[in-house]
């Protein structure tokens, strides 16, 4: 028993190292990297070629691979892909990393193939026998552990300790954790979140590489085995709630022990084939359901996946459909001019089978916004059920129906627990289910008929049957057409609108009585049924179905193919299916290595990082742009307005706009005073198509408090965000000490001395009081001297402080290291009067020390007490500025009610 635990810890050490990297990159960047195992494989491949191929000693090869190659790879991927993905939707993120999972090993193996002959390197296939980093062959050290095992365990412990020190006790670690906790706030504190991400990817990649090098003498150069390793690591990460590295590490070690104990004691599981193999997967699913209920999203929706604009909205219906109808006609004409045993018609038919399965992604992902990795399992489920039913003597049409219904039923079963989870957690849950189906359900001999599988006849329609690929092409086109109609009606129907409502605003939908879970379950069931129908047709056109025909991993690749074309429309699914079937044939015909196809496919992920809505949307957008440009040149209008947000800009610069601003500039330039430290000139800004600021001019001098007052929605907070660089401007300029800083990002403005205390509380709730202070200060001691109540709570998480303490913590660093400009957005909101007094005393002190303060308040009384000057804001413009003494009740009323005085 003890021996099992000890040796389990060694196995667990590899899981732990890999899982720490996974958690680190997810927590720091929000991208769950499915390619983490592939990075490990690639590093192990480099290690193998250096060590076994070129004869380097194990430690040298290991060092170069783990500390040289892997970090570089991580950084390169960050630059090429992950940076763009951080802002893409969840689907694009998942798909892009799945693409990498396929492309990276293929790239490595292709290069290994190419250099094998000229450099006399050993082949990197199943015959390759990689060594460990220690002496080779491994020598026994103690208690039956050999040198490789001891090295693995020691390195893992060292890495764990090093990682902990790095994250807890270095400024880099602090910045990374701050970026994870509140990315936006971190940039306002002068932390370059992008640089933190780059560091996180570099580090995470090194960890994956280390795990790969440690694991490769045991698992061999098998990229499939590394994917298995990734799934086990994902389990550990999930138990670390995808946030905590120490917990992830512990879970990794624990997983190794559990696997050993199951292998040693769980003999009762021997009856069910695959159950013991599936232990990590079972734990993954349990962990997801129990530990990771989404707090942010409801019913599995990914609300940030906003649909792209309909670029073709201005085209007539016939014009929009024309390309598809012409292609359809061309395809049919071509099909019927070919003989019945034509190879390429068969390929097209196969592509259409895939297209039908892919249509299910349009329903569940395109409309429902849920990323489902279990689609291959649904297709296999239907096909196997259909095969079983047919073999049991049921007529084929009934058997097909039974198969499709079985898939739909399983879809509902999967949806029930999964829907409580949101976003990526849902995706991981479908992944776990897909693997479970592969490893356990389809291994049940009675269901899948062992490795033999079930034979299925062709579908016969009196005059013809589906052994003729031309009949299959027509049948599939009809079915896809019907699914297309179904999808369109779904989108237009009441239930369809309900689904879209749930997707874009789950909370709002719930309040108006739209049932999220019910519509989601319906979508899941429908998508599963479509995938199931596709699976049955796949089986009938192949003539048989076995448990290994539609492996879980195929489902991942399918999703990637569809998303690459565009998952919101049937067209994307059809194009995806045809490409998936035809492209490999073309490559093979040209004598290109199969690796090249995989690499090309993987680079699709990089396209997605730039165009998350796929190729079709990209084409439509390009055409839209071209047309807009043509119209612009055709019309004589001097200023075509591509975006509506640009219109107010011209308005602001027009004579009328200037007149509305009145004498503001003169008021600002008070004679005899120093130059303003911060100055906004004609700033126009907004969110998306909504313009909020319509030409704001404002100046703040050193040692001066400017109170910005105005009604709710006047644009006060937006002004703050623009001043701090948190929101880009569409027109106008922002000057700091006379220098134009309009183009500088928030973290550089913060470093230059512009500190924004945002609305709500400007603290990192996941960091301790001390760590919060350190994000702005070298040493927090002076703060403790000034504010003993914070000193007493230095080790408490900021999230656990009272509102008043949080606000003190937000502003305290400014006392010790005064910024040039402090922008406080609603600092007194929701605080007790006593605390408010304390806060305003603090502002007074800062003013004395020469800080320029911009104070935003909805409630005017407190602000007016400390203000030197006052600016009133209304509807995105400054309507009046003047000294505090000139503010009276009339002016206040006018400012808030909009009555001109």
């Amino acid at each position, binding site marked *: 028993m003890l021996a099992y635990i000890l040796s389990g810890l*060694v*196995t667990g050490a*590899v899981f732990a190292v890999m899982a720490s990297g996974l958690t680190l990159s997810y927590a720091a960047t929000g991208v769950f990297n499915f390619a983490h195992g592939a990075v490990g494989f690639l590093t192990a491949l480099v290690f193998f070629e250096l060590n076994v191929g070129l004869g380097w000693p194990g430690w040298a090869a290991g060092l170069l691979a783990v500390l040289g190659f892997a970090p570089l790879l991580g950084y390169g991927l960050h630059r090429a892909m992950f940076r763009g993905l951080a802002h893409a939707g969840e689907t694009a993120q998942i798909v892009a990393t799945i693409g990498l999972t396929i492309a990276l090993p293929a790239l490595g193996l292709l290069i290994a193939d190419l250099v094998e002959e000229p450099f006399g390197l050993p082949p990197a*296939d*199943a*015959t390759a*026998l990689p*060594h460990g980093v220690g002496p080779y*062959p491994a020598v026994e050290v103690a208690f039956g552990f050999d040198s490789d095992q001891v090295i693995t365990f020691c390195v893992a412990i060292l890495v764990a300790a090093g990682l902990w020190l790095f994250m807890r006790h270095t400024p880099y670690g602090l910045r990374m954790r701050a970026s994870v906790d509140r990315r936006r706030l971190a940039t306002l504190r002068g932390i370059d979140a992008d640089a933190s991400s780059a560091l996180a990817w570099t580090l995470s990649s090194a960890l994956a590489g280390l795990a790969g090098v440690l694991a490769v003498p*045991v*698992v*061999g*150069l*098998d*990229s*499939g*085995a590394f994917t*298995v390793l990734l799934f086990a690591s994902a389990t550990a990460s999930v138990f670390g709630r995808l946030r905590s590295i120490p917990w992830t590490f512990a879970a990794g070690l624990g997983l190794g022990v559990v696997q050993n104990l199951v*292998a*040693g004691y769980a003999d009762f599981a*021997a009856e069910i084939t*695959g159950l013991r*193999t599936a232990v990590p997967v079972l734990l993954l699913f349990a962990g997801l359901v129990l530990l990771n209920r989404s707090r942010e999203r409801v019913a599995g929706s990914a609300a940030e996946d906003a649909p792209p604009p309909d670029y073709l909205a201005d085209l007539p219906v016939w014009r929009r459909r024309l390309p598809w*109808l012409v292609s*359809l006609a061309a395809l*049919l004409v071509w099909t019927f001019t070919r003989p*019945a*045993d034509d*190879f*390429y018609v*068969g390929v097209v038919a*196969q592509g259409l089978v895939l297209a039908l399965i892919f249509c299910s992604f349009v329903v569940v992902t395109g409309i429902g916004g849920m990323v489902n990795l279990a689609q291959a399992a649904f297709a296999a489920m239907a096909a196997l059920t259909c095969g079983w039913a047919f073999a049991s003597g049921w007529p084929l049409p009934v058997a097909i129906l039974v198969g499709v219904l079985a898939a739909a039923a399983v879809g509902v079963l999967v949806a029930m627990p999964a829907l409580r989870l949101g976003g990526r957690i849902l995706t991981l849950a479908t992944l776990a289910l897909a693997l479970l189906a592969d490893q356990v359900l389809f*291994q049940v*001999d009675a269901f*899948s008929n*062992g*490795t*033999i*599988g079930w034979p299925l006849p062709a579908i016969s*329609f009196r*005059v013809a049957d589906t*052994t*003729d690929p*031309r*009949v299959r092409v*027509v*049948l599939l*086109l*009809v079915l896809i057409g019907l699914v*297309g109609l179904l999808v369109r*009606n779904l989108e237009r129907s009441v239930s369809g609108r309900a689904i879209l409502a749930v997707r874009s605003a789950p909370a709002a939908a719930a309040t108006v009585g739209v049932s999220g879970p019910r519509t989601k379950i319906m979508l899941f069931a429908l998508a599963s049924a479509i995938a199931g129908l596709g699976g049955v047709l796949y089986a009938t056109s*192949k*003539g*048989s179905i076995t*448990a290994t*025909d539609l492996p879980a991993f195929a489902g991942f690749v399918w999703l990637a193919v569809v998303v690459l074309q565009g998952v919101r429309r049937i067209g994307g699914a059809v194009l995806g299916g045809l490409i998936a*079937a035809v492209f490999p*044939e073309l490559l*093979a015909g040209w004598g290109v290595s*199969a690796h090249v196809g995989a690499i090309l496919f993987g680079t699709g992920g990089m396209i997605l990082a730039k165009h998350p809505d796929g190729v079709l949307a990209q084409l439509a957008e390009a055409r839209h742009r071209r047309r807009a440009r043509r119209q612009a040149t055709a019309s004589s209008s001097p200023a075509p307005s591509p975006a509506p947000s640009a219109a107010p800009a011209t308005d602001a610069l027009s004579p009328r706009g200037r007149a509305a601003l009145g004498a503001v500039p003169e008021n600002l330039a008070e004679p005899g005073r120093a130059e303003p430290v911060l100055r906004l000139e004609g700033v126009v800004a907004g969110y998306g198509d909504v313009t909020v600021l319509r030409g704001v001019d404002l100046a703040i001098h050193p040692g001066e408090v400017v109170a910005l007052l105005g009604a709710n929605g006047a644009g006060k907070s937006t002004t703050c965000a623009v001043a701090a660089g948190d929101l880009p401007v569409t027109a106008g300029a922002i000057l700091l000490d006379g220098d134009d800083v309009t183009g500088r990002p928030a973290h550089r403005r913060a470093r230059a001395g512009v500190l924004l205390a945002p609305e709500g509380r400007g603290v990192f709730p996941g960091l301790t009081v001390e760590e919060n202070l350190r994000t702005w200060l070298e040493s927090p001691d002076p703060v403790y001297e000034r504010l003993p109540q914070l000193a007493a709570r230095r080790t408490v998480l900021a999230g656990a402080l009272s509102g008043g303490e949080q606000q003190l913590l937000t502003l305290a660093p400014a006392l010790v290291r005064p910024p040039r400009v402090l922008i406080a957005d609603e600092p007194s909101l929701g605080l007790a009067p006593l605390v408010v007094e304390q806060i305003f005393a603090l502002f007074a002190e800062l003013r004395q020390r020469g800080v320029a303060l911009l104070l935003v308040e909805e409630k005017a009384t407190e602000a007016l007490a400390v203000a030197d000057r006052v600016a009133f804001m209304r509807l995105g413009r400054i309507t009046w500025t003047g000294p505090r003494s000139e503010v009276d009740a009339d002016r206040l009323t006018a400012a808030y009610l909009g009555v001109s005085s």
Partner: protein
Amino acid sequence: MRRELVVLAAVVALAGCAAQQKTAPGAQTPGVTDTTVKVGGVLTKTSASGYSTKDAELGARARFERANAAGGVHGRKIEFVGAEDDTQDAAKGDAAAKKLVQKDKVFALVPVHAPNFGGAVFLEQQGVPWFGWATGPQWCGTRTGFGYNGCLAPKPGAGSQTWWGNQMADLLGGASGKTVYVQTSDSSGSKYGGKTISQSFQAAGFTLVGLNSALPGAAPPADWLPYVNKIMTSDGGAPPDIVVSIIAGTKFNVGLYSALKKAGYKGVLSDATSYDAAILKDPATAMALEGVVAAPMFEPFESSAPEIAQLRQDVEKVSPGATLTQHLAIGYWSADIFLKMLEQTGRDLTREKFLATGNGSFLYENAGFGKIQYPKDHAEPNGCGALVKLEGGAYRVAKSMKCFDNVPLK
């Protein structure tokens, strides 16, 4: 909505037309001219797991080259178009078979050596003969799929091999009182293998003390301790006399054997995959596998049989210095049996005639693979095998190819 229905209706109408123009039966046999017979193969050349059978292409080519050098078969030379790669993906295998038949117009598929081959139903339906290593059930019970050593996945009730157990009994001087432990991994395929091999040893008189399928199938465990503990106590608290490993992959076997030796195991180790020259290149692996008795299903390359000398010579001619591997032998003998069948069919060659010859009490004996009988071996293995022992870092023939009677599979 109505417009879409019109389009659909038009499409359906066209489908009717499709049915009208069925092609007339071919006037000429595909892939056969007066002077040539075209063949091509499907192999798993690349795969995610690194498993590769690509050497079978070289084996087949070597055998065809000799036939062509001797003037071909009935005046027809073999035009070998090479082998497609199915990447261990059933759908790709199906597509590859269709490509060879429909686009390249081959007469037959030689060699087919892909563990997850997906083109079986298509080939059977089209009546295209295919030759290779019949490790999967898709081969069995067909009239077109010819495994070079029969069907290795017989159904319950059909014959199952006993040669492994019998050869081992001969090697050890009798089976009585000796115990055997069979280790497989946790998948239906591997479990099936475990069943047939346990039966083989039991038929030869060994006592089965354990059949364990706990090993995870996807990747070797990092830690062998739980599995080794079970083995070392399986024979009433003592280790068994023989441990048979039915797990594919050198990594698995190296791990298991090293752990067993570390635990003090002194008995016999046997498996089907350790006969691989690549192992000898790596001294540590060779050391881990030292003493293992591998069970190839063809006459070992170290044999003095003239057929093997011929094989070496043929391969040397096509690819000087090539390493002889299991997959190469499989490709070679598959091609050899195809040529034999082609010769017996005669000058007048169609697929129907060819299949009639193959399935009409075809019998061919050869020291290289034992003997093959069709149609009998469509349903069961040929029952022949050899044993090779790794001793002092080199393979030695322990038992030459010999055939034993099959017993019905339980």
